[in-house]
């Protein structure tokens, strides 16, 4: 296995296999990538499927591990700072990376993700646009056609509905309709999801609308560690990537490594290994699930929590292995019940792993209503930890 891996990664001569007991440490030769051994299902050079063992190494770095693990202690920061760090590193590395969006430059970004970048890189590389989502998204895509790598910020993901035509037709489909002549290496990012009483139009979950667009990849970040890694991976990807952030997660604090790392765009994250039930979630709901998990553990259950991270395509390898182990699936998502990510995931798991399921898949989603302003109503729209606990108890009967 090691030999196979080493023969594949020809470029990095001194690649150390990660030690299961501590965080991956590697000597930087070329592009260092932290990923578990089962990162992509296809051997990148030979195109054949590799068989591999499941080694759950893509663990969210809890605070206690990092202090003991790395040779250098990491540094603590908030999620929006992690995004900024990733963006800044990529902009330093490649002069073609630029940022386009409303108030990203002088103002520093409405969620401070691009703070200080305009002063460092100039007004053309961190471009303040007028309020014209349709056309500045189109402009970014046109620039990408010539080789630039723009990062488009939607001040709120919901505003990008105005740019839907550009994202669907020109971003997603242009590589196909031009017969492969043009690649569109854009990153479209922004905060979405239900916040604190922001109202219906500012609490939208666009992942359900974008999921059918062929040609784009979608990822959702949930911790500072994966936010920075996914941001870097998205910028380096030749495909258009939509990076979903969440309004309420920007101030999460975590200790992340000092060394450079890039995460795989198609990999799910094992948050908490378990035996009884597989709980699949992403973005903010991960925290509701972990809260419910505490209660569940006290009640004697052992849930396995997976943050799916990759919304398109799904990491059915990780998910499948988990299903084969626990035989019960609960999906907890923030999308609406109709046509959300949960709906697609339910169909995918049913189709592929039907034989391994002991019970029907339960999918907890938000209600099919516009998000109300009133605080209590808004709480009832989204899935709460108590509902998750109840669902697990029912599932595990």
């Amino acid at each position, binding site marked *: 296995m090691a030999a196979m891996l080493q023969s594949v990664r020809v470029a990095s001569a001194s690649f150390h296999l990660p030690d299961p007991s501590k965080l991956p440490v590697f000597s930087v030769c070329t592009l260092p990538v932290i990923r578990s051994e089962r990162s*992509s*299902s*296809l051997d*990148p050079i030979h195109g054949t499927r590799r068989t591999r063992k499941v080694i759950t190494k893509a663990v969210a770095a809890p605070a206690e591990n990092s202090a003991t693990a790395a040779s250098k202690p990491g540094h603590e920061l908030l999620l929006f700072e992690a995004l900024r760090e990733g963006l800044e590193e990529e902009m330093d590395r490649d002069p073609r990376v*630029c940022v386009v969006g409303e108030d990203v430059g002088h103002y520093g970004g409405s969620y401070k993700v691009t703070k200080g970048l305009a002063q460092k890189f100039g007004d*053309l*590389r961190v*471009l303040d*646009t*007028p309020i*014209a989502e*349709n*056309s*500045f*998204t*189109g*402009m*970014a*895509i*046109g*620039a*990408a*056609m*010539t*080789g*630039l790598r723009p990062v488009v910020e939607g001040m709120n993901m919901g505003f990008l509905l105005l740019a839907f*035509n*550009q994202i669907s*037709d*020109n971003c997603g489909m*242009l*590589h*196909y*309709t*031009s*017969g*492969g*002549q*043009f*690649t569109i290496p854009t990153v479209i990012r922004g905060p979405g999801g239900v916040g604190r009483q922001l109202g219906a139009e500012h609490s939208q979950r666009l992942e359900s609308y974008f*999921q059918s667009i*062929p*040609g784009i*990849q979608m990822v959702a970040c949930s911790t500072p560690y994966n936010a920075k890694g996914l941001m870097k991976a998205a910028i380096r990807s*030749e*495909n258009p990537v939509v990076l979903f952030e969440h309004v309420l997660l920007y101030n999460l604090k975590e200790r992340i490594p000092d060394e450079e790392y890039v995460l795989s*765009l*198609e990999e799910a994250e094992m948050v908490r290994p378990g035996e009884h039930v597989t709980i699949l979630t992403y973005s903010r709901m991960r925290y509701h699930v972990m809260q419910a998990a505490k209660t569940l553990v006290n009640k004697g259950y052992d849930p396995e929590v997976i943050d799916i991270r990759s919304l*398109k*395509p*799904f990491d*059915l*390898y990780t998910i499948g292995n988990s299903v084969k182990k626990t035989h019960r699936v609960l999906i907890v998502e923030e999308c609406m019940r109709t046509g959300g990510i949960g709906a*697609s*995931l339910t*169909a*995918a*798991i049913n*189709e*592929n792993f039907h034989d391994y399921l002991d019970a029907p898949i339960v999918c907890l989603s938000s209600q099919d209503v516009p998000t109300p302003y009133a605080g209590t109503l808004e709480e009832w729209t989204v899935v709460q930890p108590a509902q998750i606990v109840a669902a697990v108890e029912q599932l595990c009967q």
Partner: protein
Amino acid sequence: MAQLTQRAATFQRTLSAAAFSVSSTRCLNTASTSPITVETSLPFTGHKIDPPSRSVETTPQELLSFFRDMALMRRMEIAADSLYKAKLIRGFCHLYDGQEAVAVGMEAAITKKDCIITAYRDHCIFLGRGGTLLEAFAELMGRKDGCSKGKGGSMHFYKKEGGFYGGHGIVGAQVPLGCGLAFAQKYSKDENVTFAMYGDGAANQGQLFEALNMAALWDLPAILVCENNHYGMGTAEWRAAKSPAYYKRGDYVPGLKVDGMDALAVKQACKFAKEYALKNGPIILEMDTYRYHGHSMSDPGSTYRTRDEISGIRQERDPIERIRKLILSHDLATEKELKDTEKEVRKEVDEAIAQAKESPLPDPSELFTNVYVKGLGVEAFGADRKELRAVLP
């Protein structure tokens, strides 16, 4: 004086005809590059800018190449018409005959490093940018040898090496893309411009004005070219736009109205616009042109305009006839030579069609290629990573 030159010319012509028969291609190669000055048919009208002069510098070689290129484009579009009626081309087919002068005049003023992006009436612009007839016909017929491997169709012709960025089906969506191309040109500091073309129908799209605002704000080298053929599908311009003076609609952005049926006027305007845009930012060019066919092959083109109008324009303003008259009046070639050129062109088009018909249809596996860029392990799997196998009849 004119009579004298004419008589001398007739004498010369009879001599040369008697001496040897000149093939039109040889004529093209040996045509001189000595400058001729021609006056455009109409003066330019400027909006917030001084229009360029009516006198255009050209050469015999250029005029002959104009004639040949426009004849080729015209022939290609007519052939596409027959192919569509023979059901070899399906779906939507938007033909450009009548508007050839815009494509040809623009090419004469710019280089392949400048970018052109247009909407769905893109066959002739594709040819102008270096596309071959085989690529065009094969793409129209959905064959593997097409410029987009048969997967794009009539509305999605692209040629990256030629600086041709398509080929877009949604009206107006290409204008922000064009401003993005100009942004990238400014970003990389290469001294090139982008011509973002759209029609009189698209001129009412909001994203056009959004893009224009940004282009003007950041002084992007974008030239917005409105090919005004006076009909947005079935709706005449006066029924769709409160102000059909499209060159004035940029407000703070200067504009120029050009006779789009005169290739030399188009060339002059584009040259002028390129110089302007490199220094000062965006400019709008309105090309007053006309399409003989309907909006697309599904539109007869006669329900919203009279046949007299169409034949009138064909008689008075046809771009190929104009160049023909110019060539004949300056004695650059004989009638027979021009007719021979047309015959050659016809033969070329027929050969290309025959070759394109031989080209195979794309392989079923092509359904899944180019959805994503390879290298990430994502080769058009569905969300559940299962490859969808379609059983094709």
